Structure formats: structure tokens, C-alpha cells
């Protein structure tokens, strides 16, 4: 019962808790008071002034009542409403006591101390209320509320001791604001300082005003004037970084609201030019890279990005689950004086290190291989790759082995990993790391990645962490800021394309569990990412699939003048300023056919002639699939052919429709293919090129005709040559060859023969490559984004099977070339 004597708290006896608090408040107040006193006159806002005037006029007795009780300014001695203020004291007491009783307080008396006691609980709340209610004058209900309202400071400042909790809270708040204002102004440049101080002083004054007042204050700022060119030149000699920084902020501010804030007669490009120079000076970037970045980010984001590049990313490490568990590792490291936390929800093995008393790269745990130092972004590609146990995996550019070991750990040391790198020096670290981490299922080789499908192929999954310009890791290597130019980027991009193609070729599309490829770079340049991926989509039978990472920004589908395949949305970009990890790009491909479209059109001479023939076949095929009766096949085809010959040009569009329908409907219904349709299947495989070709036909029809006669024969021959063997393999060889032969001949006039000239051939190549993405190809060839609106597209899209089906059909169609070509 009662309090026990606690010897440890002995020294706390004497003046009680309240007393100490009071004292604290006193001292606290003392800090602010002088300033407040000095600025007393200044600090009166217009409203306060009005109120003061009213007070003086209306209630002369109010101050007297306040001061007469001696040093006991009762709670609520001065409410906001002046008229109410006079009447207050008794009623207020009552209210307070009532309040206390209602709250079940022990001490019933509405004494000063009780009010004090409630300081903690009430003070903030009341302040908030006050804030919420902004305009106190009108609020009569506030009167009884502890007199909490805005006791005008001028009256109470003299007897600081007796301040009411709410007053103190208000004071505190003001003080904070003032301090904040000061800090703000410190951050600003010298010129601004004066202005800022004024505003800091005026901060308290405007306290009671609505936010609008503050905004007005901002608006009153002098509009930023772009310095004339001469001054700029001066600046470059000895740049004053603070001024430059200020100017950057200003320009960004102006550009954000260009219409109103611009200086007359200055164009946006002038501002941008200036900004670019300033950014280059302030963050010491090369002009080229900065230009690239400005293209990439909106302005506000750009500054954030540049700032983020000045700060190192947090040290992260990945638990080696082959040897330990994360919890155990964390415990062991904490025991060594490392301050760490789990990396994030998305990673079950990552830890982030805040600070450490020991070198984190040389702890016994590290040496025993219990963890690997690895950037957060480096774990993502492996997670996207999602390797399964017992798979064959290729890590094409593996150094220094972080990702490789992560793969091994996800596979639990089963299967085989081929870790390759072109750099022998860097391979040494791979050997060390893999052994240290206890990876036993890895082979480490030293090939140029581009040789790859020749060395070994048929991998279930491939990870390509391509060499890149490193624009995502500027915080690690600031040299990138200046030492990259267009050539470097393009050189990287070229290498990446080569690597990506050989990586794709190394994947085994028919793998039961895999057939996936992850392409990632630590660059954020579009040239090295979306562009490369888009290129691969055109060149190989791959499609993009979601990476399985639920954060990160989508890849670009359009960037300035470039348009990429819409599925690039499923790629992921990571930025230092948004995700606090290195800039990174991740794309995950699924390979759906082992055939290489490129080889079909590899030599234009032989392959081109085949293409014009294909439409014929399609023309025939369509009615077949529509009628569905194999017996009428020939007749139907013949009819169609006749029609076409009669109206060659008119039918071109129809043909497209038909063809496209043919590709989709047929392919999707292939399972129900009858014997006769088997031949059509064969033909389908080669459709995409010709669909593309047909679309282009209207434009080129005129000039094409001249090519037709001489091409005709060669085309026929080539056609036979190329198509005969596969057909021979097919079930119904008697029908097919004859068909194609006969049909190949009559058509040349109305077919497009752009393939005769080289440009046409090239285009075809492209089109062939785009096989899986017919739609895109369509759009591109139409040359207008309006593509879908044309009759072709609409009919086409209507005939498209649902995506899933289509995918199936695509893959089927895609696989066929392997047989047919």
C-alpha cells in the first residue's frame, strides 16, 4: 500500500514532479521571452492588432481581473472572444472542475497544478484543436475550454511562470517554427538569408492566420530572373556552388510552373540550357551523361536522382543459406557489434548494415562463407530468374560471383551452374567466392559470352548480367559521370545485343521447368536496356514475362522518338532515389521456340523469293479453315485464287484480314486439324513474314510489279527447294507440294515483290524476326499509330483468340519453322 521507498529514486525527492516541470517550463520560456519581448510590436499580426484594439476599447476590466488574483492566472483567463473574456473566471473554474471530476481525477480542485498536470495529455490536443479551428474569433464554444485559445502573448509574457499549458505549447510550437525557419535560411544562400529571417520572424505572427497567409508570402517572393549570358560566363570561371545550387532550385521552380513564373522573352530551352550547365557544375557531370539523364527523368526527379548519386547506398549482405540461416547470422553479427536489420519484405535472406564496429568484409562469419556482401539490386535478377533445383543454369557474366552463389543457394547446390566470365582477373574472385560460400555445383569457365551456344547450350535458365556503362551505380563509381560518351553507350549496347542473342540461343525452350532468361544491367540508359530487349524480341522467338518482382518501375514502351514493344512494360527499372538501391534494369524472357528466325532471312537472296509465295498459300488456307471441310479444300482455294486474280488490288486488304485470321484461328485450332489441314499448318508457320509484307503492299504495289516477272521463276524454284523437304516429313505429302506449286505460279502480279530490292529484303528480315509480335509489326509497317483503326486491324483483332490461346498458337507456330525451314 502506498508508495514504497525506492532508494534509487531518492534524489528525486524534494520539489515534486510538477515543480520541476514548472521550472523546466520557466527556463524554456526564458529562452524565448527576450526575443518575444523585442519583437513584441512586430509580432502582432493584423488580427492580433485588431483584437488588441478591441480589448483596449471594450473591456478595460479584463486585464485587471486577470492580474488581481496575483500570480494566479486562472485557466482560461483570456479567451479569444474579448467580450467573453471579462465574464470568464468563475464559470471557467466550474467548467474545469467539472471536467476533472468527469475524468475521475483524484484532485477535484481546479487548481493551477491540476491544469499543469494535464499539460501532457491535453496540451497537444488543444493545440491541434486550435489549429484545426483556425479562426477562433467566431468559435464561441471554445470559450470555456481552459481558456486555451490564443491568450495573446503580449499580456502573458511578463509572467512567464504562470503560463498555461496551452500557452506554453503554443510558444513551443512557435519556437520550433522559428528554429525551423532559421535552419531553412541557413540552407539558403546569403542573399536569401535576410529575407528568410524576416519570414522566420514573421512566422509566429502568421501563426494564427490560415495557411493562405503563408502561401501568399511565398508568392510574394521575387520572381527568379535568369542571369544574362555574360554573367553566366563569369560564373563558369569560379563557380560559387551555393549560388549555383540556389539557381538550380529556382530554375526548377520556374520550369514547374513555366506559364506564370517565366521571365518575359525567355524560352524554355534557355532555362533548360542554363539548368543543364548548372547541374553539370554542381554535381560535376559530363555534358553528355547529364543530357541523357535529363531525357530520362522529369526535372524534379532528376535532381533527386543526382542527389541520390552523391550518397552511398546502404551496405547490404545476403545470407548464405547453404551454410546458415538469416536469424543465426544476424545474431552472430550483432554479437560482433554490427547494427543491422532485415533488408525488406521482398528478401528472405538480405540484411542491411547500418554501422559496424568491425570490418564487415573480414569477420569470421564472412570468411566462413556465411554471407556475401551484395547490393540489394543484385539480388533482384536472381529472384527474377527463380532457379529451380536440378536445373542447368548459365550465368554468362558471373564475376564476382555474387549472383552465381545466390543461384546456387536457391538451387540448394543441386543441378549445374556454369559460371562464365570473359575477364580472367575477375574470375579469380569468382573462384574464391564460390568456394568460400560452399558452392559445389558450379563450373567456372573463361569464355567470351558471345561464343556461347557453340560451347554449351541447352540451359534451362540463363542469367545475363551484361557489362554496361554503369550509369546506375554512379554512387559507387563517380568516374562514370564524366568518362562516358555516346560511343561508349552504343558500344555497350552493341555488345549487350550480341550477348543477349547468344544467351537466348543458349536457352532450351523445350525445358520442362525453365526456358527462361533474365537480362539485367546496372545501367539506366534506355539504349542499354529497353532498346536491347526490344531488339532481342525482334530477333528471336522470345517474349517478355513478368519478372515476379512486385516493385520497381515499369520499363519504357516509348522513349523520345523510339517506340518499343508494349510488353516492355513487364520489365523493371530500379533507381537509387526511389528504391535506395543501385540503378538497375531487369527483363525476364521466356523462350518459346528453339528456332532462330534470323537464320531464315539470313541470306536475302535465297529467302526472299519464298516470302511472296507464302501469301498464296495463306489465301488458300483460309477458306479451308473456315469451311472446315477438307474435301472442298481445293475447290475453295481455286475459287479464291480466281477472285484474287480478278481484283488483285482490291483484295489485298481482304487478304490481310484473311491471313491474319488464318494465322490466329488456325493456329489456335490446330489441335483439331484434319489431315488436309496439316499442310496448312505447315504454311502457317511462315505466315508472319508475309502478313507483314502484305500490309506494306498497298504502298509499294506500283513499283513492285516490275520486279515480278524475273522473280517469278526464281521464287518458284526457291519455294520448292525450301518447302519440299519439310513437306516430305509431313503426313500428307502428296497434296501439299502440288498445291503449293500450282498456287505459287499464278500470283506474282498481285503479290508484293518488294523483296526483289534490297531494302525490301531487309524489311522482311525484320518482319520475320517480329514473328511473335505480329501486331507490333503491323503497326510499325503501317507507319502510323492509328494502325488499329484501319479495317485490317479491327477485323484482325476481332479474330484474335484470347491471349492464352494465342500464346499457345504462337509457340506452336514458332516451333514449326524448325521443321519447315
Amino acid at each position, binding site marked *: 500500500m502506498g508508495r514504497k521507498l525506492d532508494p534509487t529514486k531518492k534524489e528525486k525527492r524534494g520539489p515534486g514532479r510538477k515543480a520541476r516541470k514548472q521550472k523546466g517550463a520557466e527556463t524554456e520560456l526564458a529562452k524565448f521571452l527576450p526575443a518575444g519581448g523585442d519583437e513584441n510590436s512586430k509580432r502582432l499580426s493584423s488580427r492580433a492588432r485588431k483584437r488588441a484594439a478591441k480589448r483596449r476599447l471594450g473591456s478595460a476590466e479584463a486585464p485587471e481581473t486577470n492580474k488581481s488574483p496575483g500570480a494566479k492566472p486562472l485557466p482560461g483567463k483570456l479567451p479569444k472572444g474579448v467580450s467573453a473574456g471579462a465574464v470568464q473566471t468563475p464559470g471557467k473554474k466550474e467548467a474545469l472542475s467539472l471536467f476533472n471530476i468527469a475524468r475521475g481525477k483524484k484532485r477535484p480542485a481546479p487548481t493551477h497544478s491540476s491544469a499543469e498536470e494535464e499539460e501532457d495529455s491535453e496540451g497537444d490536443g488543444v493545440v491541434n484543436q486550435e489549429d484545426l479551428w483556425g479562426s477562433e474569433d467566431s468559435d464561441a464554444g471554445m470559450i470555456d475550454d481552459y481558456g486555451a485559445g490564443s491568450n495573446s502573448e503580449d499580456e502573458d509574457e511578463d509572467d512567464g511562470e504562470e503560463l498555461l499549458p496551452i500557452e506554453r505549447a503554443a510558444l513551443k510550437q512557435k519556437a520550433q517554427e522559428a528554429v525551423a525557419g532559421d535552419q531553412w535560411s541557413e540552407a539558403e544562400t546569403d542573399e536569401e538569408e535576410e529575407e528568410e529571417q524576416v519570414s522566420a520572424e514573421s512566422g509566429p505572427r502568421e501563426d494564427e492566420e490560415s495557411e493562405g497567409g503563408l502561401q501568399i508570402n511565398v508568392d510574394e517572393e521575387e520572381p527568379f530572373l535568369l542571369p544574362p549570358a555574360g554573367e553566366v560566363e563569369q560564373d563558369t570561371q569560379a563557380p560559387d556552388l551555393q549560388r549555383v545550387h540556389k539557381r538550380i532550385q529556382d530554375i526548377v521552380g520556374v520550369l514547374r510552373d513555366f506559364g506564370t513564373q517565366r521571365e518575359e522573352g525567355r524560352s524554355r530551352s534557355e532555362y533548360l540550357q542554363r539548368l543543364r550547365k548548372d547541374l553539370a557544375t554542381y554535381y560535376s557531370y559530363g555534358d553528355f551523361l547529364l543530357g541523357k539523364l535529363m531525357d530520362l527523368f522529369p526535372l524534379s526527379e532528376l535532381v533527386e536522382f543526382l542527389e541520390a548519386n552523391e550518397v552511398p547506398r546502404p551496405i547490404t549482405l545476403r545470407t548464405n543459406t547453404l551454410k546458415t540461416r538469416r536469424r543465426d547470422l544476424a545474431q552472430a553479427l550483432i554479437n560482433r557489434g554490427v547494427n543491422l536489420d532485415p533488408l525488406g519484405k521482398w528478401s528472405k535472406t538480405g540484411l542491411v548494415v547500418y554501422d559496424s564496429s568491425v570490418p564487415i568484409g573480414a569477420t569470421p562469419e564472412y570468411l566462413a562463407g556465411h554471407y556475401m556482401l551484395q547490393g540489394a539490386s543484385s539480388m533482384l535478377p536472381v529472384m527474377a530468374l527463380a532457379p529451380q533445383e536440378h536445373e542447368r543454369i548459365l550465368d554468362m557474366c558471373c564475376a564476382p560471383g555474387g549472383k552465381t552463389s545466390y543461384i546456387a543457394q536457391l538451387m540448394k547446390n543441386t543441378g549445374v551452374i556454369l559460371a562464365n566470365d570473359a575477364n580472367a582477373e575477375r574470375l579469380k574472385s569468382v573462384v574464391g567466392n564460390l568456394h568460400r560460400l560452399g558452392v559445389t555445383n558450379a563450373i*567456372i569457365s573463361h569464355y567470351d559470352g558471345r561464343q556461347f551456344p557453340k560451347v554449351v547450350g541447352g540451359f534451362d535458365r540463363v542469367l545475363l548480367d551484361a557489362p554496361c556503362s554503369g550509369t546506375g551505380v554512379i554512387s559507387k563509381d563517380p568516374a562514370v559521370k564524366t568518362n562516358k560518351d555516346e560511343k561508349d553507350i552504343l558500344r555497350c549496347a552493341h555488345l549487350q545485343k550480341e550477348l543477349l542473342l547468344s544467351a537466348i540461343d543458349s536457352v532450351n525452350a523445350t525445358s520442362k521447368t525453365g526456358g527462361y532468361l533474365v537480362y539485367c544491367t546496372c545501367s539506366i540508359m534506355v539504349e542499354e536496356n529497353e532498346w536491347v530487349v526490344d531488339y532481342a524480341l525482334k530477333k528471336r522467338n522470345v517474349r517478355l514475362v513478368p519478372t515476379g518482382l512486385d516493385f520497381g518501375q515499369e520499363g519504357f514502351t516509348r522513349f523520345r522518338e523510339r517506340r518499343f514493344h508494349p510488353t516492355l512494360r513487364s520489365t523493371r527499372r530500379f533507381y537509387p532515389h526511389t528504391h535506395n538501391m543501385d540503378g538497375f534494369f531487369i527483363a525476364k524472357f521466356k523462350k518459346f521456340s528453339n528456332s532462330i528466325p534470323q537464320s531464315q532471312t539470313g541470306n536475302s537472296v535465297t529467302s526472299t523469293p519464298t516470302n511472296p509465295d507464302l501469301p498464296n498459300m495463306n489465301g488458300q488456307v483460309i477458306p479451308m479453315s473456315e469451311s472446315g471441310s477438307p474435301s472442298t479444300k481445293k475447290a475453295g482455294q481455286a475459287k479464291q485464287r480466281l477472285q484474287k486474280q480478278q481484283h488483285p488490288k482490291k483484295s489485298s486488304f481482304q487478304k490481310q484480314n484473311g491471313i491474319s485470321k488464318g494465322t490466329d484461328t488456325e493456329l489456335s485450332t490446330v489441335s483439331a486439324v484434319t489431315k488436309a489441314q496439316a499442310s496448312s499448318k505447315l504454311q502457317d508457320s511462315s505466315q508472319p513474314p508475309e502478313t507483314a509484307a502484305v500490309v506494306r503492299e498497298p504502298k509499294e504495289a506500283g513499283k513492285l510489279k516490275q520486279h515480278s516477272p524475273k522473280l517469278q521463276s526464281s521464287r518458284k524454284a526457291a519455294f520448292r527447294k525450301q518447302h519440299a523437304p519439310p513437306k516430305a516429313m509431313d503426313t500428307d505429302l502428296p497434296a501439299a507440294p502440288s498445291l503449293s506449286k500450282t498456287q505459287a505460279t499464278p500470283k506474282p502480279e498481285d503479290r508484293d515483290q518488294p523483296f526483289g530490292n534490297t531494302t525490301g529484303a531487309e524489311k522482311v528480315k525484320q518482319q520475320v524476326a517480329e514473328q511473335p509480335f505480329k501486331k507490333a509489326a503491323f503497326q510499325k509497317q503501317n507507319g502510323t499509330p492509328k494502325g488499329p483503326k484501319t479495317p485490317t486491324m479491327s477485323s484482325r483483332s476481332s479474330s484474335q483468340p484470347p491471349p492464352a490461346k494465342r500464346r499457345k498458337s504462337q509457340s506452336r507456330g514458332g516451333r514449326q519453322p524448325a521443321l519447315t525451314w
Partner: protein
Amino acid sequence: MRPLTEEETRVMFEKIAKYIGENLQLLVDRPDGTYCFRLHNDRVYYVSEKILKLAANISGDKLVSLGTCFGKFTKTHKFRLHITALDYLAPYAKYKVWIKPGAEQSFLYGNHVLKSGLGRITENTSQYQGVVVYSMADVPLHPQGEKDLLNTHCLHGGEIYLHLILTSAYNGSTITYYIRNEMDIQGPGANSPSTSTAGALSRPHTPTPQDSVSVSL
């Protein structure tokens, strides 16, 4: 890459048996597949047959490493275990030494362990016996077990004064080897001076008289 010759196999097994005795059998006959030793660049790799098949596609000069490196043959056809074999030797080790946490760090950084740093030792550990060193925390469940290949050197008769020797042959076979001698694990860099890759840790190894004694091997 080629299988070991009869002679090489004998030499290597003798050395391994020093540490794990008859448990060597367990390494060769594994329930989870066929494992074999292959010689590549004078290094002996212990590797699963499945991996071996894939590795066969890679030409000799491009192959850097496969599976786990157990050690290397010297020019005089002696066999030197590498620290990388630790993962396989530690579970089967016959003689073990546990060292106290205080001595752990200094041991890892290449210093000798004195008697005061000795936590436990397997009974009957004789002189010149190959042992595996554990930290005190090496409980089976506990992941933190720094295990090191070392040779004991017991002086003064029965008194166990442990002088854990970092033999010159091993050039410091603690796990700091990974830092100090990264270049040496893999083949081609073997002849290059292999010290000083990691700042503070690259304490130059000072060979003691005992080091050069081939006693340990």
C-alpha cells in the same frame, strides 16, 4: 582435365586420411551420386559426375574450376590440401581442436594459438596429427563454426602446449586464406606472389623454423 593416376590418388588419399582417417571412404562412395576426383591445372577437384559431363564440353584452357578444389600437386608431386576442402573434411574430421572466442580472431588473422586460447581438444591427439580447428561455438546446430585445417605440434611431452602451425606449405590455411590468397586457389595464378590482396589482413606470413619442417605433412 583428367582422372588421377594411381600414384597421385595414393598420395592424395594418404594426405586426406591424415585428417579424416577411414572416413575417406564416405567421400568416395556417396549415396547421392557418383563423385570423382579430377586433375586440372595440377589442382584436384572433387566433383559430381553430372557436373563433370557438362564440364567436358569446356576446353581445358577455358576451364577455370569445377566442383570443389581439394588441393594441388606440387612440382615434386606432393599433395597440398587447400582450405577449400574444408567443407568436406570438417564433418568427418577425427581430431578436432576448439579454440576460445578470444583467440579466434587472432588465429584467423594468422597468429598462433597459445594454450590459453585452447578451448577443447580431442583426446589422444598425438603430435603431428592433422586436426581441424573449430571455434567454440561449433555446435552442430550452430552455423558459426570456423573450421581450419591445421597441424598440431605438441611440445614438452605430455603437456599440451598447442602450437598451431601455419605451415609454409599451407601458407596460412585458415579461412583468411580466402582473402589473402585468393589468387592461389585457382590454377594459373599459383606461382605469382600471393600475398597482400586485402589490406589489413594481408599480414605477411613469417615462416618460423617449424614451418619449413615437413613434419606436418
